[in-house]
């Protein structure tokens, strides 16, 4: 029987994978995928808390629906920026996008 702790550990693992991927990936598309992982780990938390803390009030589940919608919008904008960089300047490796330094 899965308890609340199981879900929280799963989401913590996902969140850490997301943060690690965001910091270590060099490919911009890989970074976008890591960001999705971070959002979805929060979704797991919301749904798990909603089920185990007050199952009658659906705040947590509604919140996760909003987060999914927002994540889709962010992914669309992020991909647009990455595609633009690739088309105009032939870059996907973010280490090469470093023209400004103080």
């Amino acid at each position: 029987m899965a308890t609340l702790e199981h879900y929280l550990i799963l989401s913590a693992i996902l969140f850490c994978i997301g943060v690690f991927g965001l910091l270590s990936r060099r490919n911009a598309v890989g970074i976008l995928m890591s960001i999705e992982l971070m959002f979805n780990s929060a979704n797991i938390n919301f749904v798990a808390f909603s089920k185990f803390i007050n199952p009658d009030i659906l705040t947590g589940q509604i919140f996760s629906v909003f987060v999914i919608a927002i994540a889709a919008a962010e992914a669309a904008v992020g991909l647009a920026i990455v595609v633009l960089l690739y088309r105009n300047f032939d870059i996907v490796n973010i280490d090469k996008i470093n023209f400004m330094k103080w």
Partner: protein
Amino acid sequence: MIEIPFINLAVIYPEIAIFTASVIVLLVDLFMKGEKQGTLSTITMLGFAAAAIIASRQWFHFETGFSDALIADNFALVFKLLFCAAGVLTLFLSVHYLNREKIFRGEYFFLILSSTVGMMILASANELITAFLGLEVMSVPLYLLAGYDKKKLLSNEAALKYFLMGAFASGILIYGIAFVYGNLGTTNFDEIYRALQGKTLYGEPLLLLGLGLILIGFSFKTAFVPFHSWVPDVYVGTPTPATAFFSIAPKAAGFAILFRLLFKAFAPMMPDITGILWVLAVLTMFAGNLIAIAQRNIKRMLAYSSIAHAGYILIALTTGTADGAKAAILYLLAYTAMNVGAFGIVILLGREGEKDLSIAGYSGLSRRHPIAAAAMALFMFSLAGIPPTAGFIGKFYIFRGAVSAGFIWLAILGVVNSLISVYYYLRVIVIMYMKPEAESDRVITYPLSLMVAIILAAWGTVQIGIFPNSWLNLVRDSVSGFF
């Protein structure tokens, strides 16, 4: 039978006005042929004007709606008016610039309008769901605005950096909100306040983790040190009028939600987090001001100066009193006027392709362009906080609020930072007035729209500085019902 709840649309009338204008802008841009910049900017202007009129008519109405998820008290309304003012001023800054850089497209106005809708939702959010939604509706158009000059590499770099940092911050924020929800079982600010009674922050690990992650998320968005690293690159790469917008409106929106979150929802936890805010404020002020000294590019200098100004407002947040909130609103109003003015002069003196942005290039400006130099001097004095300008009044009330709330050291460090900042602001004036004229083929035209923006900004800077009474009344009214 499902009962349909009563929906009080009055609470989002300003948002509806702006959203309608944004949709009309998109449709007109799609179907209209030929020269359309004039039409589109007029529609945008009318949208902002309508929203501002509606917001000022709702003064003291205290509308709430959507199951208390949104609230239009005076505190929210004053921020809505500020966003409208920032939007209109940005519009005046943009018209000439977009023509000069030959990058005009209709989406520009749509992006500014739709991100303003997000800021307004954020300012009136009374629920973590609406706060998160407002934050994202605000941020996503801003990422695109940063990359608006899409043929230029720097603009693309700015968009990517802003997007990655913003999305990372959103991920942290939403994870934190999940923990707060898990601990308290609610996301409504009033219910959070009630649920927190009798709890201590350090006795509830989930709550501590959640609130910490929420603070980190918002610190990224409002660029507190050490979460500021994206700011200078984004501000330099972004088209200059959009940079002016970035440095004012999203920052004000971030502070609006931080005030509501910390003064209302998490008010019982405020004594526990004051120490963290204290450290953030001091770090933000010192890092912003000290790094700004080393800058050679005027946009980069203004970027670091905007970080430092966020630090001053953070002092007001740390005090946790009504006086602090009032001082912060006054400071944001003053900052809007003087920063729009400074960026307006930067646009006026720049040339196609974002050239002529080095501070050294301003040498001897006073001889050939005395009006531009005098206006720049006014805005620099105000940013440095020298009387009788708006910047002085804003800083005065922030420091006075800190002293009367017992944060003597914070006020002293704030004054020390103001003195540091005088160095790099006055350097611009010294270069303009006392250095020999630089060899430059700079030709300045004075386009009408840009002059309107600069004159309005100068009027605001002087008006708040010399006749602060009416502004103080406005600010006093705007926190009524909030405490």
